[in-house]
């Protein structure tokens, strides 16, 4: 095996931005809005870089699908310590309709091409909250998956994954090659330092199109409408318990 790890990163609207829906309810406003790497993807990159620093793996390759701006996200990952990048170019309407199924097909193709030890992704993106890409990638490759990882360790040619599940923590040991998705408590990602950002400008980013990988990115989904959550209305103060009960009855709640 190559000792190579593939990390998928997604460019999303920054978590601190107040999201606005376009007046025509077609999608959210993205023009002029701050974008950055999805926080769970940052955790995935950090984990891969940490493992390389501990000499458990040899090379960290970071990939992102999208228009020109996706290169910025790849550069951030390179500044965090990844070795090289792959920009899968998807633009315009294709990009608007790009979802987990198409991305997982791309990831699967690249994972095979790069002959990786494992693929690591964030558990979900903060824009669509799908939590599907990692799992679909594993299924397409027929590889084991360790999702919601809060702890990772190599044990020989197997990976031990501690997973955060509803009831607590579950530990699994999976064969390589495998797909891992990173959860919040896996690590605390480093900030890219200025010297490292400058050094990262010299690292290579290859440019490919989905067609080059034999992947058809037509979407089977159509977004019909996007709405903001209902506005919070003012509460009403009542003077007595009887008043409260009467109001609740009026509103058909009791």
């Amino acid at each position: 095996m190559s000792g190579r790890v593939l990390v998928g990163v997604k460019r999303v609207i920054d978590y601190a931005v107040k999201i606005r829906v376009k007046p025509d309810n077609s999608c959210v406003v993205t023009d002029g809005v701050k974008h950055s790497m999805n926080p769970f993807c940052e955790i995935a990159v950090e984990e891969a870089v940490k493992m390389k620093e501990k000499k458990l793996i040899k090379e960290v390759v970071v990939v992102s699908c999208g228009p020109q701006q996706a290169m910025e996200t790849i550069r951030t990952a390179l500044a965090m310590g990844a070795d090289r990048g792959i920009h899968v170019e998807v633009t315009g309407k294709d990009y608007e309709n790009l979802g987990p199924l198409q991305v997982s097909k791309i990831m699967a193709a690249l994972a095979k091409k790069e002959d990786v030890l494992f693929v690591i992704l964030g558990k979900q993106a903060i824009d669509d909250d799908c939590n599907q890409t990692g799992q679909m990638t594993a299924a397409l490759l027929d590889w084991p998956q360790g999702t919601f990882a809060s702890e990772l360790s190599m044990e020989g040619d197997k990976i031990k994954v501690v997973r955060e599940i509803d009831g607590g923590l579950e530990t699994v040991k999976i064969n390589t090659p495998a797909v891992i998705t990173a959860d919040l408590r896996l690590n605390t990602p480093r900030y890219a330092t200025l010297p490292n950002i400058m050094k990262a400008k010299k690292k290579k980013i290859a440019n490919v199109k989905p067609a080059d990988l034999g992947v058809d990115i037509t979407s089977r989904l159509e977004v019909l409408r996007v709405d903001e959550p209902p506005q919070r209305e003012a509460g009403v103060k009542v003077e007595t318990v009887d008043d409260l009960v009467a109001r609740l009855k009026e509103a058909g709640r009791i």
Partner: protein
Amino acid sequence: MLLGFRPSLRLLSPRLQLLQSRSVQSEHPATSAAVDSVLSALRSICGEDGVSFGAAVREQHGRDESIHRCCPPDVVVFPRCVEEVSALAKVCHQHNLPIIPFGTGTGLEGGVSAVKGGVCFSLRNMDQVLDLHPEDFDVTVEPGVTRKALNSHLRDTGLWFPVDPGADASLCGMAATSASGTNAVRYGTMRENVLNLEAVLADGTILHTAGRGRRPRKTAAGYNLTNLLVGSEGTLGIITKATLRLYGIPEAMVSAVCSFPSVQAAVDSTVQILQAGVPIARIEFLDDVMMDACNRFSSLSYAVSPTLFLEFHGSERSLEEQVLTAEDITQSNGGSDFQWARDAGSRERLWKARHDAWYAALALRPGCKAYATDVCVPLSRLPQIIVETKQDLMENRLTGPIAGHVGDGNFHCIMVVEPSDPEELHRVHLFTERLARRALALDGTCTGEHGVGLGKRALLCEEVGPEAVKVMQRLKDSLDPKNLMNPGKVLQ
């Protein structure tokens, strides 16, 4: 929440509240018509949602993190842009209503207490990071942006704003109080890092202290209005934008800890490290009482003696040199147990005592509150003042573990005090006055970073002298002749 001032009022009608307030400064008693016209003027500027009378909202905006009691304003307004701030100020100016700017309410000197009532300008809705210029290392922010929010916004650029007071404070608020942090020894305080300010004066005038949009790294043009406003604690104007100097996030960091047989040894090491040209980023001092508190609080086993916590920033190679030099110096001053760490996890563990200091001090006497003193003296006077202060604490049976930014000669006694015991509060008050005067006698200042606020106005006079106070008063009178801007603070 612990402050136990009067319990929540039954909601009076807004008109009645304003009538009953002691705030309206006009010659004639407020009539309900006058009050109504003020309210409708305020509402017409920032909308129905932008003006609040709720008791809870007013109380929230009448206190900060000091032990000064809550003095709620009569009304809180939430402007959304500098034009609204200016229009609101004009209304207040016309009706002689005090104006109290409010950022995050994390001040330590009662700066937002509306001692004469009035209108609190909560600036939290102006929360944009504007105009970032990574290649010029500058950024302009609105008052609703806190230091952690800015650094998060900057994380992809490799830049940061290093001034780090304890709280996640509003950057414009930090400019207003001339805040400082643990790495001032290398990166400076707000005074060195504000390039330009946009502020609204008491009469609504919008002022750009260095000229609109200007951000040269240095200037010799005219009077330094930017630094006149920095540290003015809301008494000269409402800061609505700050242009800040940014720095590159260092390539690598190393933290170290070392204990010493005496305060003198620790301070001598600090001075020598600085003299050796080590560009040390943080050098923090904890006294033996504090180390003991930290051991108990976090189940650690540090030596119970004066301790230095150091942090170095730089490239991998320069760090090696910096750490070696520092280690040599500490050893030659009798320092022992020098430990250092490179990766984030180990650095956190090494510095745990320093991070938990405030809580460890509070844990010494559960149920009590804490007040931090803030004197700052020339480095050479630090051993003397710390030794005398510790003696004072013991003689007066006071709990006051010491933590300090020893690289700046600034230290804090964390006075842990029972808030319902007036005798103890009085003893603490007298102690803090003695401490401030001790610092003044040693060529220092009564406030290194927290500001004058409500409690240090008399000390300010002693510190700068009557002539300087007169000049300050003349500046105040010329910019705010009606004394509407945050009355009762800084100047008496």
